[in-house]
C-alpha cells in the first residue's frame, strides 16, 4: 500500500516526460533544412538591423537588485503563510499571532529596499 498521492505524482512526472519527448520529436521532424556553410553575414546577430558593436551581454540593469533580494525573502514568507493557511481553522488565533509578527517584522526591509531602488544614484 503506497501513500495517497504518490501514484498521482508518478502520473504527473510521466505526463511531463511524455510532453518533453513529444515536443522534441515534433521539433526534430519539423526542423527545416539547414544551411551547411552559412555566410558570416547570415550568422551575425540581428540587433534591430544595425551592425552589432561591442560585446553582446552589456547593458546590465542592477538598479532593481533590492527587489530581487526581497523576492528571496518573500518567497520564504509566502511558503510559511501557505502552511499556516492550510490549517487555519484548527490553528486558530493562537497560531496566527506568530505568523502575524513574522510578516510584520519583514515589512521593514521592504521599506529599505524600496527606498534604495528608487534612487538610481545608489547603483
Amino acid at each position: 500500500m503506497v501513500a495517497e498521492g504518490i501514484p498521482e505524482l508518478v502520473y504527473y512526472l510521466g505526463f511531463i516526460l511524455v510532453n518533453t519527448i513529444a515536443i522534441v520529436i515534433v521539433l526534430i521532424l519539423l526542423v527545416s533544412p539547414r544551411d551547411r556553410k552559412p555566410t558570416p553575414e547570415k550568422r551575425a546577430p540581428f540587433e534591430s538591423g544595425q551592425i552589432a558593436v561591442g560585446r553582446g551581454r552589456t547593458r546590465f540593469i542592477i538598479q532593481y537588485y533590492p527587489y530581487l533580494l526581497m523576492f528571496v525573502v518573500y518567497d520564504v514568507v509566502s511558503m510559511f503563510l501557505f502552511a499556516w493557511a492550510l490549517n487555519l481553522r484548527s490553528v486558530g488565533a493562537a497560531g496566527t499571532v506568530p505568523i502575524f509578527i513574522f510578516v510584520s517584522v519583514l515589512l521593514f526591509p521592504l521599506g529599505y529596499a524600496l527606498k534604495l531602488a528608487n534612487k538610481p544614484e545608489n547603483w
Partner: protein
Amino acid sequence: MEPLSSFFAVSIILLAVGLFGMTTKRSAIRILFSVELVYNAANLNIIAFSRLRNPPLITGQIIVLFSISLAAMEAAVGLAIIILAFRLNSDIDLRKLNKLKG
C-alpha cells in the same frame, strides 16, 4: 520500497562533492555552489532520518524548512559579498582578494 541507506548514500556523495569543491576551487561563486550542495546533503539526511520511525517525525521536516530559509539568506548575503568584491577588484578569485594582508 527503497531502503533508507540509499538516501544516505546520495547524501554522502553530495557532501563529498561539496567538500571537494570547497577545498579545490578558487572562484568565490564556485565555493558558494559547494556550500549549497553541503546544505542539501544535510537536509536530505535529516528528512531520511525522520522517516526512520513510523509515523515519521514531523519535526525533521520543520527543521528542514528553517534550514532551507537560512540557506537562501546565506546565498543572498554571499552573492552580495561577491558583487562587492567584483566591484572593488574586478575579479572573484579568492586568492587574489588579499588586500587586507599586511
